[in-house]
């Protein structure tokens, strides 16, 4: 086993273990913090795949904004910050069936796939960030998805401003 494989197994174990804690822990805030561990683990996987830009964006956007928003939501909606509650609700049997089905399906799909043994192709020596930036603004590559995503975000922004204005005028 190479060092990279050992590192991958460690990070995968961290991600899976923390993801399990996210859904089973009783305190809401703890779930949010375990989620942050998961997100850091995913960032580490990106970094191992030579996608440093994705790793940093993962930390900035998911840890720095979304996870903190989660914590905020929990802090503002709960009367007691040390709020405890049952971790699982009544739908656990349906959830178990669904997750077994999807995991089984993935297993069936990947059982005969030979890609596990392939080595990753060598990366070009160019600056990856530059390649990514160029790809995002080249018309025959990813310009359209990029612009559609921007419009989507803009719509969300305008919606937020509209809602805020409505609340003030009342």
């Amino acid at each position, binding site marked *: 086993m190479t060092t990279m494989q050992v590192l991958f197994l460690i990070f995968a174990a961290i991600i899976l273990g923390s993801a399990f804690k996210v859904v089973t822990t009783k305190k809401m805030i703890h779930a949010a913090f375990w989620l*942050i561990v998961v997100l850091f683990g995913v960032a580490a996987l990106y970094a191992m795949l030579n996608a440093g*830009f994705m790793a*940093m964006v993962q930390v*900035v956007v998911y*840890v*720095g904004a979304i996870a*903190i928003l989660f914590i905020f939501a929990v802090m503002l909606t709960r009367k007691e910050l040390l709020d405890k509650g049952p971790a699982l609700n009544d739908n656990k049997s349906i959830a178990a069936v669904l997750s077994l089905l999807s995991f089984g399906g993935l297993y069936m799909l990947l059982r005969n796939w030979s890609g596990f043994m392939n080595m990753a192709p060598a990366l070009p020596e160019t600056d990856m960030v530059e390649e990514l930036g160029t790809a995002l603004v080249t018309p025959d590559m990813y310009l359209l998805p990029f612009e559609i995503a921007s419009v989507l975000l803009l719509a969300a922004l305008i919606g937020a401003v509209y809602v805020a204005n409505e609340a003030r005028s009342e």
Partner: protein
Amino acid sequence: MEFWNDPITTIFNSLLKSFTSGGMSEGLATVLIYLIGILLFVTFAMVLDIFLVWIERKVVARFQDRLGPNRLGPFGIFQPFADIVKLLIKEDITPVGADVIMFNLAPIFSMMSVLLLWAIMPFAPKMVGVDLNVAMLYLVAAGSIGTLSVIMAGWASNNKYATMGAFRTVAQMVSYEIPMVAAILVITVLSGTMGVVGIVEAQEFLPFIFYAPLTAIIFLISAIAELGRSPFDLNEAESEIVAGFHTEYTGMKFGLFYAGELLHSFTFGGFIALLFFGGHRFFGLENLGPIVGALIFIGKALFFYWVIMWVKYTVPRIRIDHMLAFNWKFLTPLAFILLMVTALVGRLLLDSVWLVPALFLSNVFVGWMTVLYLKSHERKTREAEDAKSAVPVAQH
């Protein structure tokens, strides 16, 4: 001579030779040398931190017309060691109902978010931890770990004042991250890279302060807000919420928050020097070798650390709604306008000799327009208020 030109590589090679001559495999030796290097680097940062405490206390004393610590050693330089002993022998209190693990993790995270930044500090071109090609994003990402540590501290303390401090910090840090990212983007547009070494190289002709003076001011303001120092010290406002998020921390755990804040200020001083003042360059003195360059860089970082202290001990704390309005209604739009102007002018005059004067003049123009707009806006609000208060008088 070789050592003088490239000290890090020379030390690395000689260590590698002596390690492998004893029969150690090269891979293991490399990992070991990297570990030793990281340990030495972090130790350097922490020892520097001890003296930053002394510098901070001396400078605040001068701003307040006092002498500061002056009893222990020459100029009181051994005072921080007494402080450390005091912090270490204090009782370690964990409040009732605190979340023990997170309560103890928070100061570590706080220190970590600062030390992570040191990995990309370019003391000289060949004296940099890692030359990441996304270093500027890394700077923002490390800042979000700092935010996280404050939330952890505030929430785990089980204290309403601490939680309030955490709320304020998050509102502030998440908001001021945006103008900071826009300012960093301006630098990225100018230098064409996000890597620190590339940014320093791009300033060979002129430091970026001449290209983007307003951006430098925006970066300084948002850096101070990110640090949570006065006038943005709402998270530990002593007169309102005891000591904010670190109310419940005693001894060295508080010491870690305090030391982290000081080292963070110094680090941001270094980043201001890197982004806007040419990094290790100082009128050709840097050609003497990387060690001189590193000393110049530390000197510049200390100067901008002093600027941050100057602001801190001169300006009073601002109100929370003013803080948010200042960011969202003034700093963020201005930063984005500057980004657009810089991108446009930089594109139109690419490789032209008129690039620097045009960028400087466009900055002056944007600043002038901003001042005009603010003046007219202020006059309008004042007239509206006058009109409102004048009506009841007329009725009587």
